[in-house]
Structures are given as C-alpha cells and as structure tokens.
C-alpha cells in the first residue's frame, strides 16, 4: 500500500470529493503477474468487486486452474484451492457439496476448461452443481507460449498452427458456452467481454447474477469472458482488443444465452450448433 497515494486520496476526500472507484480490498496487494493489458486482471477485479459488494468474502472458496491464472489464489483475499489441469469443476463440486453454505467459484481458461477439462466441465454442468464458473476465453494457450487452443479461430496463427488453424487438421473452434447451455443442469449461461467500460459493466453484472444465483441455490451459472491475449496474439493491448472485436466476437457472440434456466429469445438451435462455427478469420 503506497502511503503517498493513500494520503492523496484522503486529501481529495477532505476537499469535498466523493470516491467513484477504487481497488477492492478483496484483491490482495500482490501485483498480478499477467501481461500488461490482459483481460485476466480485469476479470479478477470484477469477481473480487462482486464478492466485496455482496459481503461474502468470508464465505467464498475459489478454485484456480492450470494456465495463466494458476496463481489467482495470490490475488484474491479469499480461501483458494489450486486444481490440477482441467479438474476445477470436480474440485468445486466436492467443496460445494461438503460445504453447502460457502460460495464456490471456479476460474479457468480455455485450454483448461475446454480441452483437458471438458469432461469435468460438462458433468459438473449436467449435474447442475450450485457453483459459479468463470471461463476466460482468449483463443490460445497463453502460459505455455501461445499454442492452439480448442477455441483458436479457423485461420488463426498460433505456435502450433504457424500457418493458421485448418479445419481438416485441427477441427473447429469449440464453443463450450453454447454447448453447456443445452444442458438442463445449467441455470445461467452467458458470454461477456472486458475490453471497454460498457462491456466491463455488463460483465460485472453477469458475474453478480452468477453469484446471486448460487446464493439462491439455482444451479450452475457459467460466465464466459472473452479476453485478448495480446502477447500470444503478438499485438499491443489496444490493437488486441480491436482484433478481438473484429475476429473473436463473430465466432463467439456476446450476450446471454440462457437466463433463469431458459434459452434466451433469438438464440435458436442453429446458433447453438452450426452458425458462426465456420466464420473464417479475416
């Protein structure tokens, strides 16, 4: 905690200013190791702010994955477990079943949740576990150096698709969120992003809803957050956010897919299965 900054904040308050925003105390003082401009930091902040605003810091157990956010437990001032690669939903299942009065959330990336942990994800969702799942999708394996993820776009370059992802070699980008929405066990399924203030506000509202659902024992809430991986995509953070809007969003449309256990209006079966899956990156 920087004393000089605290003093300046106090000075403003003394001068009649009101506080509009400051970093939540549910985040620790540890400096996050994420690359500059990475959406993980913003998503961490939003989850922590929701925990803060709901006043549930003493009841939360988080589960971090293997991947860029493996060290998430250092940044949240709540009890935390670090799961084996892909297994966070299984870990969270047992925490919640044995401690039904806690708020349990998982925090996973696309390699962890949509590749190695597909089975645990689908079955936790299908059982309707009363947990909150945060899924950060940046279309790439960030921590290991930018290899292809199940979510990598067709045509997108990565360390293991240096000439672009080819459907005949690598199959299609996997849209876990649409897939999970078809399971009766999921209560709230949404895709959000954090690249601009409006998106951040919506993403925070979605995370809040996901935790409120858990409070009301409604079943599984799943919040996908589209994020840039600027270092993996080899762009500046600002350019990466633009690229995400231009290329990721047509394949991974933003918005609620399932609310209160019902598929949203305008989301038809084709959206869940076919359309967008073949949008080739420009």
């Amino acid at each position, binding site marked *: 905690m920087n004393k000089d900054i605290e003093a300046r*904040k106090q000075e403003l308050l003394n001068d009649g200013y*009101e*506080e509009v*925003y400051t970093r939540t105390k549910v985040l620790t003082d540890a400096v996050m190791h994420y690359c*500059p401009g990475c959406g993980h930091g*913003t998503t961490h902040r939003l989850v922590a702010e929701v925990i803060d605003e709901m006043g549930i810091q003493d009841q939360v157990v988080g589960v971090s994955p293997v991947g860029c956010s493996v060290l998430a437990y250092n940044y949240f001032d709540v009890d935390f477990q670090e799961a084996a690669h892909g297994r966070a939903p299984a870990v969270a299942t047992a925490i919640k079943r044995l401690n039904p009065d806690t708020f349990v959330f998982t925090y996973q990336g696309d390699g962890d949740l949509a590749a190695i942990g597909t089975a645990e994800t689908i079955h936790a969702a299908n059982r309707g576990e009363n947990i909150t799942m945060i899924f950060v999708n940046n279309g790439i394996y960030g921590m290991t150096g930018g290899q292809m993820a199940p979510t990598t776009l067709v045509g997108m370059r990565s360390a293991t698709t240096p000439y672009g992802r080819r459907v005949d070699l690598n199959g299609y980008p996997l849209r876990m969120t649409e897939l999970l929405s078809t399971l009766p066990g999921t209560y709230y399924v949404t895709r959000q992003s954090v690249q601009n203030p409006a998106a951040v506000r919506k993403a925070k509202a979605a995370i809040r809803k996901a935790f409120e659902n858990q409070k009301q024992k409604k079943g599984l809430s799943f919040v996908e957050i589209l994020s840039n991986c600027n270092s993996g995509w080899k762009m500046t*953070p600002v350019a990466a956010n633009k690229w995400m809007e231009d290329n990721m969003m047509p394949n991974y449309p933003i918005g609620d897919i399932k609310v209160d256990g019902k598929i949203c209006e305008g989301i038809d079966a084709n959206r869940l299965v076919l359309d967008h899956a073949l949008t080739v990156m420009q």
Partner: protein
Amino acid sequence: MAIKGQIIIDTEHCKGCGVCVPVCPMKCIELSKEVNGKGYNFTHTVNDKCIGCASCAMVCPDGVISVYKKKI
C-alpha cells in the same frame, strides 16, 4: 453546475498497457514518456478535463486507478 473529476494513478503498479487511453471521453490520459521502476511507460493525466466517469478505472486490468469527483 459541472462535475469535476480527479484520478489518482498508482504509477508504480501501472504496467503501461494503455487500454485506459482510448476509453477516456475527455482525452485526459496518455502514456508518459518516463518509465516507472518496472520500466513501464505509466499512464498519467495531461489536462484537467476529467469528469470522474471512471471509464479508465473500469478497463484497468491492474486496478491502479482510483476515481473521485465533486460538483462545482
């Protein structure tokens, strides 16, 4: 009546990613030419047009921006 805003930036913890710069409606933030202890060109204010909208703080991945406002 107008709104006057102020932001306080924890420049030592700013990573200079710059995502706050384009989202400021009043164009009062830029990346500095100087660097902090980590070698990042931290973000700083370049005018006093801030309205305390907190757009910069919303998108800051590291939560280094605190926002204040008052009516004048």
